[in-house]
């Protein structure tokens, strides 16, 4: 059971390569051997065979994945959301070629990088053998072997020209299990973040923040109380409205009000409705039907507001007296008309 690692530090590749050959002749297998250096040496320089790698293959896999992603993106979007734009066909070939090309390249390079990390088990957990002198330019020939053979191998290295030989216990290796767990955790985290984003996208999680055009000024005024019109404004349509109040407030029936109403009645209403409001005015005689009898139960049973509307809007042949009477005056007239009914 290999339980010790020996690292011989060489100053130059020639003694290192010769030592490797001698180690091989002594029975050390290729997979027990690792060469550490601060700059790449061609394997042949050290007497080793070039090794293959999976990264090239993974690049191809990534490219194919990228092509499929590009096709899915273009085809998918245009299938799910077919909107006509600019006389172009819904599935347009030239733009999709551009997207597919970019996706292919993206897939190739990202997969290559991921494969690079996986192949080297980056980041390395654990504490594999290393020496700062390697960054000083030394070439480290690392052999994993059993303790029994350690002495022989150390001698071989020193004879081959090693400046030093360091010993490392077998526990000094990279911890692949931790790496696997870290990689899985990263993957789960990434998927989790994407899932959370999608939860927001599907309104499962919601952040209420003001959306620009939901509150429209073009209907805001319709929903709220209207502005008060100026005091002498004459509305041309609809009843007079004052903010926060019913259609103009009836005046209390004071003697002042009734007196004022009487004067106004004699000016504005008497001609048609007659001096006692019985509908027998001089002008009113010419109308068919005759002006209403204001003393009748039909008129007196109307509410003040209804009479107000009649004065404001007119009724049948009766014209609107909006231009003749201010709203205040109309209430006074109504108060007087009430007394007529008594």
């Amino acid at each position, binding site marked *: 059971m290999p339980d010790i690692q020996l690292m011989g530090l060489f100053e130059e590749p020639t003694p290192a390569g010769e030592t490797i050959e001698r180690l091989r002749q002594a029975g050390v297998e290729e997979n027990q051997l690792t*060469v550490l250096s601060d700059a790449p040496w061609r394997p042949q320089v050290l007497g080793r065979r070039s090794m293959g790698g999976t990264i090239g293959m993974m690049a191809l896999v990534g490219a194919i994945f990228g092509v499929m992603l590009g096709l899915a993106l273009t085809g998918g979007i245009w299938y799910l959301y077919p909107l006509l734009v600019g006389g172009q066909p819904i599935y347009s070939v030239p733009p999709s070629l551009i997207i597919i090309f970019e996706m292919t390249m*993206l897939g190739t390079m990202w997969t290559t990088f991921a494969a690079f990390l996986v192949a080297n088990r980056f980041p390395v957990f654990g504490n594999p053998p290393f020496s700062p002198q390697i960054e000083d330019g030394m070439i480290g020939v690392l052999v994993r072997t059993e303790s029994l053979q350690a002495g022989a191998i150390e001698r071989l290295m020193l004879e081959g020209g090693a400046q030093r030989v360091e010993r490392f216990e077998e526990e000094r290796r990279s911890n692949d299990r931790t790496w696997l767990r870290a990689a899985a955790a990263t993957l789960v985290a990434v998927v989790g973040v994407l899932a959370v984003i999608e939860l927001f996208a599907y309104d499962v999680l919601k952040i209420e923040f003001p959306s620009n055009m939901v509150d429209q000024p073009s209907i805001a005024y319709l929903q709220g109380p209207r502005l008060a019109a100026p005091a002498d404004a004459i509305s041309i349509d609809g009843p007079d409205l004052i903010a926060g109040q019913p259609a103009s407030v009836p005046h209390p029936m004071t003697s002042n009000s009734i007196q004022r109403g009487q004067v106004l009645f004699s000016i504005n209403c008497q001609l048609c409705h007659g001096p006692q409001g019985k509908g027998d005015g001089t002008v009113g005689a010419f109308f068919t039907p005759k002006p209403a009898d204001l003393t009748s139960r039909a008129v007196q049973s109307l509410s003040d507001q209804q009479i107000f509307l009649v004065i404001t809007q007119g009724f049948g042949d009766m014209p609107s007296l909006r231009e003749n009477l201010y709203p205040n005056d109309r209430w006074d007239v109504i108060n007087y008309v009430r007394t007529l009914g008594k």
Partner: protein
Amino acid sequence: MAQDSMHLPVWKQPFPEDSELAAQAEELRREHLLLDARPPKELADRVLTPMARLGWVFWLVFVVLAGALLTWLVTWTNQMFQGLGVVGYNRVVMWAPYIINFVYFIGIGHAGTFISAALRVLRFDWRAPISRAAETLTIFALAAAGSMPLIHLGRAWKAYWLIPYPNERGLWPDLHSPLLWDMIAIFTYLSCSLLFEYLGLLPDLAMAREYVTGWRKRFYTLLSLGWRGSGKQWKHLDTAQNVFSYAIIPVMFSVHTIVSWDFAMTLQPEWHSSIFGPYFVVGALFSGVGAVIIVLAVLRKALHLEYYIRAEHFNGMGKFLLVLSLTWAYFYFNSYIVPWYGQDPASRVILQNEATGWAAPLWYLMLFSNIVVPWATLWSKKLRTSIPVIVGVSIFVQIGMYIERYLIVAMSLGYNYLPFNWLTYTPQLTEILITIGAFSLVTLGVVLTSRLVPIIPVWEVKEGQRMQGMRRIGRAMVQTRTEPE
């Protein structure tokens, strides 16, 4: 004796005994970095020691750039609150400052890939010490460029709608739009440039890890992912770098082509030109190489990298700059003569404006900066290797290329088919501050990165020095070149 020297590491190789040959060897060593081998500890020291020395110049630069960056953020926030009316747009010229910056910075970003990927594929070994600085410039230039479309959006807070993600309302972005191609291409380019730079950075982080102490050691230990330099790791790195180099070059071409298609796909006169694709790519490389020259000169001075970055590098880059200037002139002439010959009225007005109108000073300055200045200076090796001269030429090139983008985007847009809609764009304070901020972002990014990670790929220099050598042929010492695998 001879046998002993074969077993010595390359930095201990002795000088030839003949004094004439020794002088020639000395000359070669002075000129070429890869023939001037030093012990690895010294190589590391030359990079790592200046990184930690923060003098008053560094702090001054940092404060100024950070201030500009802060101004950038504040101005952008103000613009988002007030609306894009604070910018100098009008109802016809709706693309101006931010798109100009966008195209310019993406253009600059091409140089990194060119040097680290294209020159690697073509086996130009002298690129060894400069590739990482160029890639760093690329990444921050792309970052600045990527922020520009966001700043340019009317409702930037809804920018995530351009990302195709499944959502409740079943809405998707429009893949017919060149802006979407832009987004995907730039995302690919930026992410893959970042990964590519990181790959090359790993061995140097491991080297730095062994030579520093304190928080830096923890930082490098974390980032170096446990790199040991085993044969397997080097082999995987080589394969990965090969894949990236070969793959990122077509991406580089495609990115600026797609950016040019933002313009070429429109009906706007002077934009609707099928030559825009290659024209923009060449323009990008041109301005990018110029920017890298400036960055290298500054880093060389600031970090005392005179050992690593030598006249030979500026010589090589200067040659590229000249070739690119010639190529750019060729494409520009193409894009000029075709509408000029066709006499389309709207195009004619634009060209007349450039020749004799209000845009004439800018146009002539552009031609002077992009053609006259490089052609007058870069043919001479003496001028190419003189750092002040070549940096000056590069600055002219930057000015010229920025004006070129301005004329294409902002000026041309003001002239279209209906003369009632001819309007001029005038820059306002907002976009000037934001442009300055973008330049600061790039500069600050490169400065900080050069202080945080080794900006010279020391392992590539080591590899080159161990492979390259000189030997005697006849009466001279000549440089021999070994092909890397």
